[in-house]
């Protein structure tokens, strides 16, 4: 196993994760301002991961009639268990401070964000079903998945999808199989405009910062890098022209691992386990202190009465 694929964190782990070697954290940079919506990355993802049309009808949430009437430049309404990479499309009219309007076609590639602090991994109850590699990639191990869908509730980006046939959850792997051989992800390789880049996250953050500066100078005052701190930063970062409104791109404004998940997992569960063990000790204590409530024999008690 290459050192970048050592396991840094594992779901429902009871002992320390096994990674001992440091590896540079990798990331994807998505510059939405240079995306032309060609969907080459969608095709590459389907091709490389052999997802092409395998079970779309079964797992796509919208019925086909609804799809035909979809009326947009978006391939399908939502991600699916066999569709991990979707270019979201949105038409937006920006009202500017000087009273003028500016029309936008917003294209944003939507897939797993590979959070530094993954909500799916925190929520998962099955040991080793969700792992985070030393390079930061968050990967599902379907053999260990029990299909409870806790990860779906734990994910602040609404990414994982259950395959109803296998009863396992699937999402973008950041092409971890390709990464382990030193190749870049399939979507990156296929991008014709260079709006998708892959590399060490530190480098990409700098590139993104420079691009944002450029955008600000050319009239996009609100341009910003999207690398939300609420989840410790993400392994997929964006350059957004309308950076103050990530919702327009289908991205949550301030995502974080829900406190209802962390308190449930880190406080309620250990406290509950303690309470159950205390219950056992309570019974033991009662038995030692008070013993058995023996039924007095009738003959004896009658004798006493006499």
């Amino acid at each position, binding site marked *: 196993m290459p050192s970048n694929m050592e396991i840094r964190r594992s779901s*429902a*782990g*009871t002992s320390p994760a096994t990674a001992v070697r440091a590896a540079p954290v990798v990331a994807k940079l998505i510059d939405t301002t240079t995306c032309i919506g060609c969907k080459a990355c969608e095709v590459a993802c389907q091709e490389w991961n052999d997802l092409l049309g395998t079970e779309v009808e079964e797992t796509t949430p919208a019925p086909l009639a609804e799809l035909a009437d979809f009326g947009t430049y978006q391939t399908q309404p939502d991600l699916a268990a066999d569709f991990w990479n979707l270019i979201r499309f949105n038409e937006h009219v920006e009202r500017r401070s000087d009273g003028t309007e500016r029309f936008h076609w917003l294209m944003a590639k939507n897939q797993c964000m590979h959070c530094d602090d993954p909500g799916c991994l925190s929520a998962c*109850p*099955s*040991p080793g079903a969700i792992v985070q590699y030393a390079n930061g990639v968050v990967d599902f191990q379907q053999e*260990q*998945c*029990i*299909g*409870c*869908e*806790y990860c*779906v*509730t734990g994910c602040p980006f609404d990414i994982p999808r*259950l395959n109803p046939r296998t*009863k396992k959850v699937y999402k973008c792997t950041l092409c971890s199989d390709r990464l382990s051989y030193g190749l870049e992800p399939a979507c990156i390789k296929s991008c014709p405009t260079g709006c998708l880049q892959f590399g060490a996250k530190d480098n990409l953050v700098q590139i993104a910062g420079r691009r944002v500066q450029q955008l600000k100078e050319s009239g996009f005052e609100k341009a910003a890098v999207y690398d939300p701190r609420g989840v410790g930063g993400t392994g997929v970062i964006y350059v957004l022209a309308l950076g103050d409104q990530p919702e327009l791109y289908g991205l949550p404004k301030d995502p974080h691992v*829900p406190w*209802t*998940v962390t308190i*449930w997992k880190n406080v*309620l*569960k250990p406290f*509950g*386990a303690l*309470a*159950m063990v205390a*219950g*056992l000790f*309570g*019974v033991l204590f*009662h*038995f030692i202190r*008070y013993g*058995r*409530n*023996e*039924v*007095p*024999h*009738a003959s004896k008690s009658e004798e006493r009465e006499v």
Partner: protein
Amino acid sequence: MDDHMTDTHLLSQAQIAARAREHEDVVANDLVVRHTARVRLTHWLLAIFFFLATLTGFVLYTPYLAGLAAIFGGGAKARFLHPWFSLGFVISVWSLFLAWRRRMKREAGDHEWRRNVGAYLRYEMELHEVGKYNAGQKLFFWSVILGAAAMLASGIIMWFPTSFHWILRMIAYWLHEVTFIAFVIGVIYHIYMSTAAMPGTLRAMTRGTVTKDWARWHHPRWYREVRGEKK
């Protein structure tokens, strides 16, 4: 029928067993029938489903007990079986609810019992007015009914999570968790009280009968009623 058979008329063991299958709250020799066969069967069905649901539940509760999944053929199988075991549990609870809801209504002496629960646990309480079920047993019964309802409602949401809003899912996880913890602690005490702490009690749920001495000691007003005495 011969429900009012007198103490002097002796029955064979087989006759006692036959009587305990059909009738409760009747005297048979030096025994009193406490639970009919139907109630006992329901109780043990409930118990079996409870333990199956609890074991598969512990698989998801903590990774330290995830190894329990091996009994059921792995985590995915445990996850698949859990809701079905739980449905069996809920149906058994419903059946026991139908059988017991009238006998579990509040009675005159219950308030007094609850006020002195500490004395009861120290075996120091005078029990003259305790009927077939004391206030603690009633509390356990209604807690189980309420708990099963909570488990069912939250369990259905957890079974089909994506059909429900995120907030409902989160409420369900918490409710399921807290109710589970309460159930495990409640059942620890239930088993302890009916076996180690109170000798002569378990047979009420196995053979269906208890000794007259037991009935007089733990449930004196019930014993008087069974013998046709004035309350």
